[in-house]
């Protein structure tokens, strides 16, 4: 039952996505490409690109994956699964948050999570830009895009546009 599989995998991702979607992108790619073989790594980077180019939360790549696997129902189930469990958790924690504003364990968890999130977002970027054997052209595009983000105040959309032009010219 493919819809159930989508719901289970993305529901699980929802609850381990500390640091947001970028932090689980490499795990998502592993589940979608390596574990379930729903698509190739090259197709994954293309769906990721479509979601990046459209406005809206980056979680929408999950809708595209669901669509590819099981049509509109798949899109809705996958998106619901990746948002739902986290949303329920957010609902319950929202009230507690203010009460524990200055509690030492909250600070401790935050300090502990920070390096993990950084390492996982690095992984996501690396896995996306390396959809097969390492390709210097994809890494060059990724490096230029990272430089635009870090060294300029331009909207990240310019990095996306540069990627489209360079991709069309180099690949």
């Amino acid at each position, binding site marked *: 039952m493919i819809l159930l599989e989508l719901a289970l995998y993305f529901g699980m991702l929802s609850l381990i996505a500390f640091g947001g979607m970028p932090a689980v992108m490499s795990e998502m790619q592993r589940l979608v490409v390596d574990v379930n073989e729903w698509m190739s790594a090259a197709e994954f980077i293309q769906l990721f690109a479509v979601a990046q180019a459209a406005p*809206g939360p980056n*979680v929408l790549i999950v809708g595209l994956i669901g669509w590819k696997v099981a049509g509109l129902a798949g899109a809705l189930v996958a998106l619901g699964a990746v948002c739902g469990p986290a949303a329920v958790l957010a609902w319950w924690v929202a009230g507690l948050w203010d009460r524990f504003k200055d509690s030492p364990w909250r600070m401790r968890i935050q300090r*502990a999570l920070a390096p993990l999130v950084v*390492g996982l977002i690095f992984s996501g970027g690396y896995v996306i830009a390396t959809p097969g054997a390492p390709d210097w052209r994809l890494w060059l595009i990724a490096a230029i895009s*990272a430089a635009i983000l870090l060294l300029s105040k331009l909207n990240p959309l310019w990095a996306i546009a540069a990627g489209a032009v360079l991709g069309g010219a180099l690949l």
Partner: protein
Amino acid sequence: MPPAPPRSLAELFLGFLSIGARSFGGVMPWAHRVMVEERRWMTEADFAETVGLCQFLPGPNIGNASIVLGKRWFGLAGALVAFLGLMALPFVWVMALGLLYADFSSNATVRAAVTGVGAAGGGLFIGTAIKLARVLVRKPAALALVAGCFIAVGIARVSLLIVLPAAALVALHLAGEKQL
């Protein structure tokens, strides 16, 4: 005039709809513009506090923010309305773009340009990670954890269900020892 929460569910819906519809290149800056500057639903400090909470929680940050704020203002109905408002138009945009792409993906140049966009998106992740890592550079234990997570998840492709609990235990211990 001090900031005031939205007065109706309709206003809440339209506010989140306009965040979702316009959020090219990242949602958080648009969420800030709509809720703090344009509609003046909340103060700067409120916004920062809510974003802090949602970055702490697992799941899509802005999706969680819509739940937390919707609940604060209108309870369950508010949480649902804010979430659906946020997602409605981006969902249509992304699906439409996906269908359009499916039509043109047999064209080699289109496929190359789209793959380039994907690599650029990956580069934005790497840039974001570097930004976040700046506060960690003086902490060797933190850098070791960054490297460990990257090697395990990015290179060795070990399941996050194994890496996350293991790394979290180590990190919580180190944070207790004041090394993070």
